[in-house]
């Protein structure tokens, strides 16, 4: 589906819905609900993104999803050097969920810039680069390297990878460490910096506040919840890495709760991620206080999921007379 066609599709749907309304309402609604969202100085055309690690670098999805129609793509986490990732098996299915232990396999920042980014840039796809370092210095170096690369619109800092730690503590579970990483990245680049939070913490607010204070433009949450599965016939953990990250519908209630909490303790935008498979899931996140959402595991199951989520949000807002995403939010 080309960009033009996709827009026409949205347009057509709206026209249909609108024709059921009175003339007065039509005038009032103008061109339908406002879907634009700002994350720092970046303006997204709509609030539905593809979550890191579930959409490759873009081309893998192009046959089945129009990426120009999506708010943004967050590409697979990038490190300075290429990484091979964890030994297989890397995935296991759980009740309404998926465990993964990919181990942040990626092509490394140089190959990303030279061989992956151009494809996205040529197509004008809003691109957010998820970055991952072994140390504060590596995060900083990544930010510096990606800064001013044409075609990159924001960075998402993955401090929530359970397998990467400094001083024995994962960056994402200690407010001080989290703030250090966030601050270093903010210093090193002019791009909006989104910090992606880990759910494996006692108190999500202390982390969210710490990275806000360190200058982050937004937080996104949640990353996967640490879990595992055992093959009782083989009497061994299913995953080569023993532990993996749980994602998918199973974790939605936890993600929603954390987004609700974060949205009530920071002033920067909160991006909701975790188990979103339908427009109604996404709407729960907007009501909880998210300004945008990311679709992750759902894309793996259903590569067109993000498009349907977006369309469903527009339909719901239209039917229920919401003019802007902000109006969806419950309470303060």
């Amino acid at each position, binding site marked *: 589906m080309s960009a033009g066609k996709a827009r026409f599709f949205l347009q057509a749907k709206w026209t249909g819905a609108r024709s059921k309304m009175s003339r007065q309402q039509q005038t009032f609604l103008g061109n339908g609900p406002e879907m634009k969202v700002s994350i720092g100085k970046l303006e997204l055309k709509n609030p539905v993104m593809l979550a890191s*690690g579930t959409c490759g670098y873009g081309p*893998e999805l192009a046959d089945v999803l129009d990426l120009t129609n999506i708010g943004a793509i967050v590409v697979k986490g990038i490190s300075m050097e290429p990484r091979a*990732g964890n030994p297989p*098996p890397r*995935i296991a299915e759980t009740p309404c969920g998926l465990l993964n232990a990919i181990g942040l*396999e990626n092509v490394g920042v140089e190959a990303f810039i030279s061989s992956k980014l151009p494809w996205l840039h040529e197509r004008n796809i809003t691109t957010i680069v998820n970055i991952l370092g072994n140390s504060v210095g590596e995060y900083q170096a990544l930010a510096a390297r990606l800064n001013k690369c044409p075609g990159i619109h924001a960075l998402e800092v993955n401090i929530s990878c359970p397998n990467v730690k400094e001083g024995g503590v994962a960056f994402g579970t200690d407010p001080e460490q989290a703030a250090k990483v966030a601050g270093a990245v903010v210093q090193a680049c002019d791009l909006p910096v989104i910090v992606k939070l880990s759910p494996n913490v006692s108190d999500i607010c202390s982390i969210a506040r710490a990275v806000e204070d360190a200058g982050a433009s937004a937080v996104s949450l949640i990353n996967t919840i640490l879990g595992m599965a055992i093959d009782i016939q083989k009497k061994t953990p299913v995953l080569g890495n023993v532990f993996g990250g749980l994602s998918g519908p199973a974790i939605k209630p936890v993600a929603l709760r954390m987004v609700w909490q974060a949205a009530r303790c920071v002033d920067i935008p909160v991006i909701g991620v975790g188990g979103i498979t339908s427009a109604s899931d996404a709407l729960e996140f907007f009501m909880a206080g998210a300004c945008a959402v990311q679709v992750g595991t759902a894309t*793996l199951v259903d*590569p067109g999921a993000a498009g349907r989520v977006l369309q469903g949000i527009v339909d719901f807002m239209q039917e229920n007379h919401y003019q802007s995403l902000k109006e969806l939010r419950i309470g303060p």
Partner: protein
Amino acid sequence: MPGRFDISSRIVSQKEIAPDTFLLRLYAPEIAENAVPGQFVMVRPGLEEERDPLLRRPFSVHRADPDAQQIEILYRVVGRGTRMIARKQAGSHLQVLGPLGRGFSLPKGKIPILVGGGLGTAPLLFLADVLEEKRAVVVLGAVTRSQLLRLQDFSSTGLEVLVATEDGSLGNRGLVTEVLDRLLGRLEKDARKNVVVFSCGPMPMMRAVAGLCGNYSVECQVSLETAMACGLGLCLGCAVCSDTGAFLHVCRQGPVFPAGQVDWSKI
């Protein structure tokens, strides 16, 4: 790479052709037209609103019929997902994504030997269907006669079909690899360069086939299975170890690989 399509596919027919083994025929024009042998599709076991089991299941394209705009899948019920698919009846729909992955590649002028064990026959019939080289040989193996699937259909392709059963109830008594060993052993050293083995089946069988071909210096392509979440190259979940220590991604670089690329000690 030609397009991939995510379609709601009508079930034309579904038959239990052996205990727990089903032949599923789907109306899937885009996939029937574009698939090549060795490629696969991802099938959602439930309805869209069902979220458990969460993932789609990968199946080889067993046959593609572009004229009828249909494809066939040959599968065995091993767990929840396949059980759900087996319950569906003609007329109902399945969400199917495909064609996916890289199939077998036919080196010009070489004579193919297709070696299948158990459900490994699934991608090979499609391959046998489209082979123009009529000197190709098919070697099929199973534990016993009743588990030899689609024999008649392989024979109808006009290719020579050799059979091995472990209990000797049909064809040679023993393993497919023994038949293959004899076949390759009979060839002159030079003739071996003009042969290519395509293999699909249980891991131990493919490992043995790969070993044999290595010994005889015969080209060999194998179709691998692994847990998959997306089938599209999005998740990097379908890694297997390669000879270089790097990982191969079965859904995009495979499922068919040159046997030499695979680290057989780690599978």
